[in-house]
């Protein structure tokens, strides 16, 4: 089992048990809430005397936990402070336009040969970081664009370009439900924050009346660099210690869609037995993808 399974179970099991425990405890001792109002900490204590009040407070705590969870997986919700936030579905749906736009623009860049140019330029440098990406494969260009958008703090472009890069990497991956080494490396670098220009934080600090909104920048640069370097080296180590997923068509890879024999290596003159489904000469959409 991978780490994410353990973390997921941990968050849910420990979360609910803690919630139940603290609800029962707080029903006995009373609830102390503190919040910051105009820079001053305000503390309030509510105590429950009868068992009915206590039971009601336990019920309320349970409802809050369930309510908060359903808020976050839903479309939109309102925080106690009155702000409207998107839930999981809202975020995904709200992304449709942005993803569609950038995938469209990337298709243009690909058709015009721009991605190929970028891939050719960056390929020699990516040999070390992404050894499993073939020379001049469009995945290199897409990854480069995502890294650039991240570094410049172009948040709106970075995620759709990252998705595009993942799609390109998935074409090189023979086991479609499992991450390849290249994907893990790409993700590790992305989650280690590649930011060079932290535009949104500088803007936030300026809006809070900071006299030097960018003062933290040198420290952030060094720690970002060291964090990314750690991610890179650890991914390299894991790639050495564990086997990579097979390429499409290699032994152990998923059968291609529709159950045909691999479209990558169609055996010449493969006899189609009587009664076998008619096999198309090429599976649309896969022939071009699997021959870089």
């Amino acid at each position: 089992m991978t780490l994410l399974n353990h973390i997921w179970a941990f968050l849910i099991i420990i979360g609910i048990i803690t919630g139940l425990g603290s609800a029962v405890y707080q029903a006995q001792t009373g609830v102390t809430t503190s919040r910051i109002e105009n820079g001053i900490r305000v503390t309030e204590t509510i105590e429950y005397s009868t068992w009915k009040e206590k039971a009601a407070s336990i019920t309320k705590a349970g409802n809050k936990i369930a309510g908060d969870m359903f808020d976050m997986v839903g479309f939109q919700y309102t925080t106690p402070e009155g702000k409207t936030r998107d839930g999981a579905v809202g975020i995904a749906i709200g992304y449709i336009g942005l993803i569609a736009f950038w995938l469209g623009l990337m298709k243009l860049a690909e058709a015009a040969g721009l991605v190929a140019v970028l891939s050719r330029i960056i390929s020699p440098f990516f040999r070390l970081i992404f050894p499993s990406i073939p020379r001049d494969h469009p995945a290199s260009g897409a990854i480069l664009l995502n890294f650039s958008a991240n570094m410049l703090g172009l948040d709106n472009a970075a995620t759709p370009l990252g998705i595009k890069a993942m799609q390109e990497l998935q074409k090189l991956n023979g086991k479609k439900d499992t991450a390849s080494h290249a994907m893990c490396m790409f993700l590790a670098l992305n989650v280690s924050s590649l930011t060079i220009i932290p535009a949104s934080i500088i803007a936030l600090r300026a809006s809070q009346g900071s006299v030097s909104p960018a003062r933290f920048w040198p420290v952030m640069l060094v720690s970002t660099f060291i964090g990314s370097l750690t991610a890179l080296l650890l991914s390299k180590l894991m790639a050495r210690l564990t086997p990579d997923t097979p390429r499409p068509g290699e032994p152990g890879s998923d059968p291609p869609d529709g159950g045909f024999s691999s479209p990558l290596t169609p055996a010449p003159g493969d006899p189609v037995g009587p009664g076998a489904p008619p096999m198309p000469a090429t599976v649309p959409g896969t022939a071009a993808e699997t021959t870089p």
Partner: protein
Amino acid sequence: MKTISPDMMPGWQILSEMTSGWMIPLIILFVVAYAYLRKVKVYEVFVEGAKEGFDVAVMIIPYLIAIFAAIALFRASGALDYVAKAFAHIVAPAVMPAEVFMMALVKPMSGSGARGLMMDVFGQYGVDSYPGFLASAVQGSTETTFYVVAVYFGAVNVRNTRYTIGVGLIAEFVAVAVSTVLSYFYFNSVQ
């Protein structure tokens, strides 16, 4: 969010904001103009690519729901607060105040949560205080790990994320530790 008048900002900051403001329009201009001059059927090709947007976004939904549900349960139950309080004082508050520690702990799980905590630090200590400085540095050198993993792997339907989360969290820990040490010396020596 109130905006400050351009006259109050240093020159380099105005230039950098202008550059980043025009970056995306200029990229779009470059790609479209280049493709058009290369006689690509720009409109048709663009639509062809954009068609995938819907499927990708819908594909992400189950991954986001799984991550958000787990995080929501962990936060709403107060478990996150307990963990943060339990560990907050392993580092001297003068080096890393409990609020900043809390922010660093929340960051991989929730970007908006971490941003809210950073604003609390600004409100409580001041933007230009040491905790404000450290919070900004930590915020800038970390990412919303679980969210990024859900979106990127979700978009290509990869369920087995292997060692990504582990590597990401270790890298985040290193970045926070380096930020803290550097901030402590930098803030107290460079004026």
